[in-house]
């Protein structure tokens, strides 16, 4: 479903020199699978999520990324989203003055329009929203407030998963979704994520710690270090990491 082949990418800051972060990353996530990416700080985890979703300020210098066999990297971010790519942000943005529900409905309709589908009706939208909110134990008042403004870290993460449930993406990238969550919130969020697991969907779970993977069980685990996958394995690899740390996998230059 998602194929990355020898991907090299640089981060290009507005001020200062660009730096190569991804240095030949290859990865294949077949439909129906959940893959975890683990790695120490600075290994390129967030860069990977931004390169895949098309954020400004990241340059792919070589290699390829395809989604359902078609080139992903030449597409605008909104086109990638419409094709079903969803990023749960590590740091969700605050959007002043735009209520959560207004925003999600606009996003839903923009995607439907781009796919040539009819807009979601108000009753249908409310029904879907209620279902998603109940599942994630989100208070309905929160959905009327401006997006993420004044929300706690945990509330923001919950709201990312709410958006995910509403938009029903086909491929999800979860960037450190566990950070800022206590154990109860983590379970609720994981339940929401697991509800989207299925035959036609793929998922990339980026995390620092093994904890999240107790609740979102991956099919494969990859260790990212210095911009490359240095080891891949089954779910046990995460447990091994938790026990003995990253050092054994890090290449010494």
């Amino acid at each position, binding site marked *: 479903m998602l194929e990355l082949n020898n991907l090299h990418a640089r981060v290009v800051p507005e001020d200062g020199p660009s730096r190569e972060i991804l240095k030949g990353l290859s990865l294949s996530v077949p439909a129906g699978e959940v893959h975890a990416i683990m790695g120490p700080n600075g290994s390129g985890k967030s860069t990977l999520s931004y390169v895949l979703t098309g954020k400004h300020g990241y340059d792919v210098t070589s290699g390829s990324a395809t989604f359902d066999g078609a080139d992903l990297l030449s597409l605008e971010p909104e086109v990638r*989203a419409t094709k079903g790519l969803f990023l749960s942000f590590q740091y969700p943005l605050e959007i*002043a003055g735009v209520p959560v529900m207004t925003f999600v409905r606009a996003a*839903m309709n923009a995607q439907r329009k781009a796919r040539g589908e009819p807009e979601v009706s108000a009753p249908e939208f409310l029904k879907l929203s209620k279902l998603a909110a109940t599942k994630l134990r989100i208070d309905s008042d929160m959905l009327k407030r401006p997006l993420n403004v004044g929300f706690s870290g945990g509330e923001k993460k919950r709201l990312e998963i709410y958006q995910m449930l509403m938009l029903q993406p086909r491929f999800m990238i979860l960037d450190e979704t566990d950070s800022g969550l206590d154990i109860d919130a983590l379970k609720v969020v994981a339940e929401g994520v697991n509800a989207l697991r299925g035959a036609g969907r793929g998922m990339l779970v980026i995390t620092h710690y093994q904890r999240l993977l107790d609740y979102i069980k991956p099919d494969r685990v990859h260790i990212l270090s210095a911009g490359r996958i240095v080891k891949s394995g089954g779910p046990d690899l995460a447990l091994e990491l938790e026990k003995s740390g990253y050092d054994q996998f890090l290449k010494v230059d």
Partner: protein
Amino acid sequence: MDLADLPSRRTEAWKWSDLRAAMSSQESVLIGTGAMPAEGPIAALAEMLGDGYGPSALIVEAPGETFESRITEGDAGQYGSVIVKAGATATMIERIGVSGSRLRPFLPSYTRIEIEPGAALHRIIVQANSAPADERDAAIVLNEIVVKLGAGASFRQFVVAEGSRLTRIETSVTAAEGAVVEMNAVYLAAANRHVDLTSRVAHAAPGVHTRQLVRGVARKSGRGVFQGKFLVERAGQKTDAEMAHNALLLEEGAEVFAKPELEIYADDVACAHGNTAGQIDENAVFYLRQRGIPDIEARAMITRAFLLEALPNWMDEVVRGEVEARIDAWLGGAS
């Protein structure tokens, strides 16, 4: 009056809005002689171009009255006064329209307003410009009010302005004990448009409560000016005043000039001001695009929300709808 009598950028209060330069192409409207009156150039021009019947006066005695006026190119200068009697409440809605027709495109208006103790006035200005975007219009819009606000009285104002060759909307308030002042505004400066919002609130007695929130946007070669001054006189103890001006520069080459000023002579006051001018947060734009909202719509959505925060909650739904429609049309059509 001669061109030389008008303020130019060498005059501090007009340094970003050079009236003399703007008027140089319309020198023929300047008639009569004599020194500039103490009320200043807007009053002088409004009187000079008035209908010749002297100042008009409006006296409001009942509660809940609404007065609407419409000024378009070719109208005479407006020079008048309004008195809102004790216990009365009124809403004034002024619509100033510029169409780029170049038919005597000079619209000066000067109004002295007295709001008696306990009375309330709401004032809304919708200054629209329907001339084609990017086309240089010749209109000069000058609008000034001087408000004397009585004890316990309130003055609430909202301005939405799209500017012209030169537009200046000036508000001066002198507030007595326990009065309430609210002056919010939105400006939308498209290419070749100049919008100047200048205001001054004198807190001349104890316990005045003042809130001012101005939000503006400017595109390439559009220019926004905000000059806001809060003066707290020695008698203005327990003044509670907040001023904020925030602008978004939507394109390179957009200009915003701001001068927020606090001048405080009392020692027991709460006064704050904030002033920002910057670009739209690209990370926020990316967030919206990642959810499937196209770039142009994402920018419009963020900008719209930014501007709508300055709309006061006292505005009735119909007028609010009109203001939102202007903002939407501007965001959708002025690019």
